[in-house]
Every structure is written in structure tokens, then in C-alpha cells.
């Protein structure tokens, strides 16, 4: 079950500031709701986990993150994250290409292209909900990212952003998402079209 997402998020900071932050993998990872780096194997390999709270259910994915490339000229970072949930009933991988595009002096954009693949129970019963789930994760990631970048600056704006960082949910609030699964599970009633693509 594959989902491809192309998203652009505004960041009210200089392209350089954003790019600087983007290269700090641990911090970038911490922008991913519910995600954390648990171990750094070498310069480009990390171990981490992400906890996706889906209503009353919690899906915790453990896995490896690899920095595929860092291109300072393009201000582009390519990350590959692979993992499986602790019950081993589903697995997920995400190939993320994130780059910073300058817009104005203190305005830039975080441009994200991600390919998310999910297999196992979640793909069978919630596959067609991956779209919106991935979108939610990325949107919250972008929020946190922007706030973190700004927070590294100075002045009241930075303080406000820092405050927002502090408040930001540490887990993806997927209260709604459980119903994605539920209805997807129901809505597939007699819909016989192949979704192979």
C-alpha cells in the first residue's frame, strides 16, 4: 500500500536558518510527532521509534533511519525510515525528500516529497486511510519544524515559537484516525475494484 505526498509549508525564517536546522537529524526527527532518535550508529545511520496514537489504539513503530544524502547547494535532505510495529503485525517505510526554498529575506518554504509504504494488518484494513494519516503526520511535522527553526532565532517571535514547541503534542493526535480504520474496514463492503496501482 503506497502513498505519495508532495507538500509545501511556509516557514517565517531565513532559508539558511531553516537549512541549518534541517541538517540536525535528531532535532528534525523530534519534529515528527511521537518520534525520537534512540541511537546513532554512525554519521548517517540512526535508530528511532515513532508512536502513532490512533484513538484508543497505539501503533508504535521501531526502525532505522538512514540519511541518503545532504545536498547543501540544493538545500536538500533525503531520509529513509524503515520500521515495523512492535507487535510485528504491520510495517511501514517512508522515503522523505525535504528541501528549503527561499521565498524572501526572512521567508522560506519547506518542500517535502514523501513516499510512504505500509504493509500488513494496517494495509489490509486501513490501507486507503494512509493518505490522510500521512498528511496529518507531515502537517504536524511541518508545524513543529517551523516553530523550531524560528525558536532558534531571537526576540519575542522566537520566544513565542519556543513556547509553541513546548506545547506541541509529543504524539500524533490521531483520535480521529481510529475512525478512519473503522469506516475503511466497513466502507469496503462489496467494493470489488482492484486498488493495485
Amino acid at each position, binding site marked *: *500500500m*503506497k502513498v505519495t505526498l508532495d507538500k509545501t509549508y511556509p516557514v517565517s525564517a531565513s532559508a539558511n536558518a531553516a537549512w541549518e536546522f534541517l541538517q540536525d537529524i535528531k532535532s528534525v526527527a523530534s519534529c515528527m510527532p511521537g518520534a525520537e532518535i534512540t541511537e546513532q550508529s554512525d554519521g548517517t545511520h540512526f535508530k528511532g521509534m515513532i508512536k502513532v496514537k490512533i484513538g484508543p489504539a497505539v501503533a508504535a513503530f521501531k526502525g532505522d533511519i538512514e540519511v541518503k544524502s545532504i545536498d547543501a547547494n540544493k538545500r536538500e535532505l533525503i531520509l529513509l525510515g524503515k520500521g*515495523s510495529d*512492535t*507487535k*510485528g*503485525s*504491520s*510495517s511501514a517505510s517512508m522515503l522523505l525528500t525535504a528541501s528549503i526554498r527561499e521565498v524572501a529575506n526572512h521567508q522560506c518554504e519547506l518542500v517535502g516529497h514523501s513516499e510512504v*509504504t505500509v*504493509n*500488513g*494488518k494496517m*494495509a*489490509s484494513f486501513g*490501507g486507503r486511510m494512509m493518505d490522510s494519516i500521512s498528511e496529518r503526520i507531515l502537517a504536524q511535522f511541518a508545524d513543529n519544524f517551523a516553530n523550531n527553526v524560528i525558536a532558534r532565532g531571537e526576540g519575542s517571535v522566537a520566544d513565542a515559537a519556543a513556547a509553541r514547541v513546548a506545547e506541541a503534542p509529543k504524539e500524533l493526535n490521531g483520535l480521529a484516525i481510529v475512525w478512519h480504520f473503522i469506516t475503511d*474496514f*466497513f466502507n*469496503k*463492503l*462489496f*467494493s*470489488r*475494484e*482492484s*486498488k*493495485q*496501482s
Partner: protein
Amino acid sequence: MAATAESLERKDKLEGIGCARKRKEDPRFIQGKGTYIDDIKLPGMVYGALVRSPHAHARIKSINKEKALALPGVITVLTADDLKPLSLHWMPTLGSDVQAVLADEKVGFQMQEVAMVIAEERYIAADGVELVEVEYEELPAIVDPHKSMDADAPIIREDLVGKDEVGHGKRLHDNHIFTWEAGDKDSTDAVFDSAEVTVKEEILNPRVHPCPLETCGCVGSFDKVKGQLTVYMTSQNPHLVRTVLAMLSGLPESKIRVVTNDIGGGFGNKVPVYPGYVVAIVASIVLGRPVKWIESRIENISTTGFARDYHGIGELAADKNGRIKALRFNVLADHGAFNSHVSATKWPAGLFSICTGSYDIPTAHVRVDAVYTNKAPGGVAYRCSLRVTEAVYLIERMIDILAQKLDIDKAEIRRRNFVQPDQFPYNTSLGWTVDSGNYEPALDKVLKAVDYEGLRKEQAEKRANGELMGIGISTFTEIVGAGPTKACDILGIGLFDSCEIRVNPTGSAIARMGTQTQGQGHETTYAQIIATELGIPSEQVQVEEGDTDKAPYGAGTWGSRSTPVGAAAVAKAARKIRDKARKIAAHLLEVSEDDLEWDIDQFKVKGVPDQARTMKEIAMAAYSNVPDGMENGLEAVDYYDPPNFTFPFGAYVCVVDIDPKTGEIKVRRFYALDDCGTRINDMIIDGQVHGGLTEAFAVAMGQLVDFDEDGNLLGNSLMDYFLPTTVETPHWETDYTVTPSPHHPLGAKGVAESPHVGGIPCFSNAVIDALSHLGVTHVDMPHTAHRIWKKLHELGASK
């Protein structure tokens, strides 16, 4: 005449062959007193639940049982490593392959069996499954069989690397299983090269599942003291299963008892031996306690006994008048990750070569290539004989396509190609001898009943104002009743079947069979045969099946075997008893056997009507007053090895209306005429036809076991998998002709599968006929509203 009236009354009392008597099995079912597998409750019984693979193709890096074992109530967790010492981690399949009982280092399909948690309670076993931690290394999966033999295709069965055959001849690729051919390729190709007309179409029989309302399950119960294994299970063929279990376990068959009790529908799903059964049985042997394993519905649809997945290319060569000169069918068969396709040893593609159907086709060649994919294993015969639905679907679709190309009426083109009555016994170009048939009268009767000409007129008018109406015809010939042991065996055991009858002193009787009912009403119909053969009221005949300790050996009930083979054994055994009864009667009446004639329920002295002995009197004498040198008792057993298959046929017409704005299909009318030869119980036959047509409707209109590109199952519960309700299911009209099988003792041929086999192409032919004026020659099943609308929209006809 009084005598006639009197004898008629005696005959009616018997409720024998031809009587639509009520079923003997019903009283327990309508009072909730049936005994299905999950009703079995034994002292000390524990429960097994399976840990299954979330991945279609992956290597198992580690399995951690600790958390599960720590859960109070969990007794043990079994994996392949635990079965290895007993060398039970792999098992033979009915397709001459082997299948992992529990995944051995690798999984080949999503939901494959990886471990079994055994616990004191059902709920605890389910909790335990959640706690078994399995680490996988995912591998690329093959879902599309057309990609199985690609040069760079990942190898699905590493255990077979280097083996150039898996039971059925040479393999062409590590993911190839076998090539099977029939007919004469060269002469077929020659006819095609010089043919006036040829048609060609890609035709898929999609992957579906029989989905009986009761899932599979078993209770293994090993008595350590007696060394006796009793297995209660959902099996259509308990005797074959016992033999397989003996081969697997090393226990003598005399120490294994397989009991089925009542079965909640089978339709082919309950023929194979599944890993869940084996692990539960092994667990019982290891623990010395009864172990119950019951499939969930999701496990049932995902892992046990899928059907079809035949990717066919059909070709016909004909002259301008639509006379078929040659047939060429090539099939790519998706058998999943293990070849557990149910087939007789010599028939890896089942009876697919019956695909010449009801038609006189002088030259033909068929080829089937089977491949492995990362999908569940199976290939069972879903309410049909092995691969007969696939065969009949192809020919009944292709002849419509030919008619369309030549603009010949779809009834007329069938008439022009029917095998004629004087051609029987008819030898087909693919090697079968069809014993009997009378196709044209059947078709004519149906066309008249539905006013075919009127329907075609109406269709023309409707088309004129943009309405979509379709008329489907199917004139199919089936092949059932496997089969002559010279032609058919499974694991070396011939496909005969058996009956043992004992007549008690007071004139009642018990019959024990090698077959196994799953709702077909054997307790009733077999009793009716005995009633007619022996003059014992069917009410007083008890029929027992499904206990290998009691019943004689038989291959079970699948492929419509019960009537062609089982019922023949009943008649033969009964006749052996009647022969002995004649001797006793002669002795009692002090006349020669030749002076006696059989009359309904008694032997009478020819010409001296009041000199007679009833079967009831003879039965008592058999235990008290037999002629010198004769053994006491009145019983017989017969193992019937049929000289040939039987060939039921039928003519069906289906009328559909399609709403072009939504793609919804409404079945307006369905008229089904079946010829199953001698009819034993009309009530039961009609019930079988209703059921078979409904399953055909489900397959044609909605059933599909679907996967995404990574091998994740889409739609494996009844929320997704199409079982029609009362509202969608059409009303069925049934009719019949009677063309007895010349070689069957009763002339009966079997009926349960005809409506499924003949019904599916009839629905498709109707749907496609409704679109034919738009240039459509074929659309694959299932015919969902979405697919039909898309087709119409693409043709600009969805207004």
C-alpha cells in the same frame, strides 16, 4: 384395478426413488441440535490460535515467545522449530507439492501460519497471539502471475531450488510448477492457420473463495494410554484425511479415528488438509489433551482453499457458418505459494480438458502452466469438479464471441455445434468419452419457456431507445463423479466409493457410506434408494457417514461424487442383499429362485400372487431360518469403481436489465433446465439448483479475493467479500429433462454443481450481450456496478 391400487399404496409407503420426501436430517437442525465442529466440547480441552504473517513474502529473523508464555493460561507456543524434531514442519499437499505447516524460516503469503499459541481458554489464546513477537525481513512479493516467470523474479520457493519437477513434469523456472497439455497441438495450429474465421479473447476466472457459512476447524484428541488419536474435523473426505494423517504421524490408521459430525457447508473449502488441523493434532499428541482450533472468518477467506485464479486465452477457429473447426485454450494458473491444488495425481489441471463442452469440435489443444505467487495456496474446486467451472466458462464465453463476430444468433450457433444424440458415446478431441447427452431438446424447451424470440424483439426495441437489456445463454456439459480408479487416484488411492448395508431382523436397515454430506441430504436420498431397491420404507433406513471407525473407506463428497459413485455403491450393495433375500424367499416358499419375481417390497411366486414373502419376513428369516450352507445375517458391502465419469448437462437463460446511469445490473429472469439423469428427490434437486445458481450469481456479480501490489489482502471479511442477501438474490425458475447415464446402476448423474458451473457463464453472457451492440466482446468478472459504468462511460453510453 384393486391390485394396482394396492401395490401403488405399498410403493408410496416406501417413499423411495422419485419421492420428494422431507429430509430425515432436518429435525435436529431446526431445533439447534446439530453437532458442528465448534459444538464439540471435551474434558480438559484447550484452545489453539495461530500467529500469522503480516507480510506476503519475508524472511523470519526471530520469533520471541517469552511474553506469550508469560501470560497466565498460555500452555505453549509451537513454531516450525518445535515441529522439526517430529519432521512435521512440512506436509504433503493434494497437489504433489509440500506445504509448510508452520513457516520454516520464510513466509510466502500474507496470513501464512507462523506459530500456534495453545491456552486454557479461547480468549487467552487470542491474547497470546498478540504477544508473540516475530521479526521479519521483507522481500519483494509477486502478486501478478504473469510476472512469476520473469528473469529477475524473486524466488518464492527456495526449498525447491534445483528441483526440476514438483510431481507433474519439467519446471521451466524456479517459480514454475508444471506444464500440462492435452490434444494435438500441430493439427490444431494447422486448422487455425487455414481457418475462415478465428476469434481470440483473454478471459479471467478471478480468485474467489467458497466461503461456507461455517469456517474450518478441528479438535485433536490423543489418548496417551490407548495411543489412540481421535480427530473431529470439518472434512468433506474423512477417510483420505485419515490416510494423510497416518502418513504424517506414523501412527497406524487403525489408531486414528476421524469424525466429522455435521458440516456447515463445504463447497470445496473443506477438502484439503490445512496447517491449523495438523498443528492442533500435534499439540494434542504432545500435551495429551484435546486441542480445539477454529478458524475466524478472516482466516478462512485469507488462507484456506481459494478457487480459480485461472488466466485464460481462448481461441476458436470456425467456418463462415459458425461451425467450430478447432479450439485452442492457453491458461496461466496462479496456485499461490504452495501447490495445494486439489487434483487427482494424473490431472494437475483437473478435468479442464472437458472445455470442448457440448460441442462437436474435431480438433483441439489446451495447455495449462501453473506458477507460484505470494498468495495463499489452494485451487480447490468451488462447487464444481476440478477446474470444470474454468473450462465451461471459457467455451461458453468463446462461442458467444464467435456468434458475435459472425452475427449469428447465440442460440443458433450452439445448435449448429451440438454433439448430436446419435454420436453418443462421443469421444472428444481432448480424450473424454461422453456417455450420453441430448442437448437440442433441452435448449428448445428453455427458449420456448422464456419466449426467446419475444425477448430478442424486446431487446431490439429497447436498444432503439438507448436502454440496455441482455439475454444470456449457457448450454453446458459437466464432467463429474471422479472417477474410474484407472484414471483417478489421490495419493495413490483410487477414487471409488463405498456403501455397507445391514438389514436388521425386524426389517429396518442401516447404511454406512464413504461419502460425506455437507447439506446435500444424503441421509434422505441414500435411504430412498435403499427403499426402492429393498422394499424397506426410507423412514426405517438409517444412513451414517463421517466416522472412519464405522464407515467403509471412500474418497468423500466433492466433485459431485455422491450420486455418480456413492449412490451407485448403495444400489449395488442393496442388490447383493436382494440376491441373498431371493434365495431365502425361495427357501421359505419352497420354490426355485427362478419361480420368484420381485414386487416392490416382496418376492412372489410367478403367477401365484398370494404366495409371497415380504422383505420384512425375509429379514427375520435371515437371522433364524436360512437354507442349508447359507450364513446367517442380511448385509452387504460394495466398493463401486465407476467405469466412466457422468456428464450432466443443462440449458440456462438469463435476462438482465442494466441501468446505464449507475451501472447497476438487475437480473430480471433466470430459467435453468438441468438434466441430471434419473431424479431421486425433486425437492432436494431443486434446492441444490437454487443454491448453485445463487453461488454462480455471487461469483459473476461480486466475488473477488483481491490484493494490492505488495500482496496485502484487500477485503477478507464478510464486510468485503460478496455473499448476496435475500434482497439481491434473484428468483430462480427450474426445469428438467431426463437422459439417464447408461453406465450408472440408477441412471443418475449428479446435480449440485451444474447450476454453479453453467450459471456463471450464463450471467456473464447476459451482461456482455447487453453491451454487445456497443462492440463489447468481453468484460471480466466480477460484474460490479462500478466496472460496468466505467465500461459504459468509456463507450460514451452512460447517459
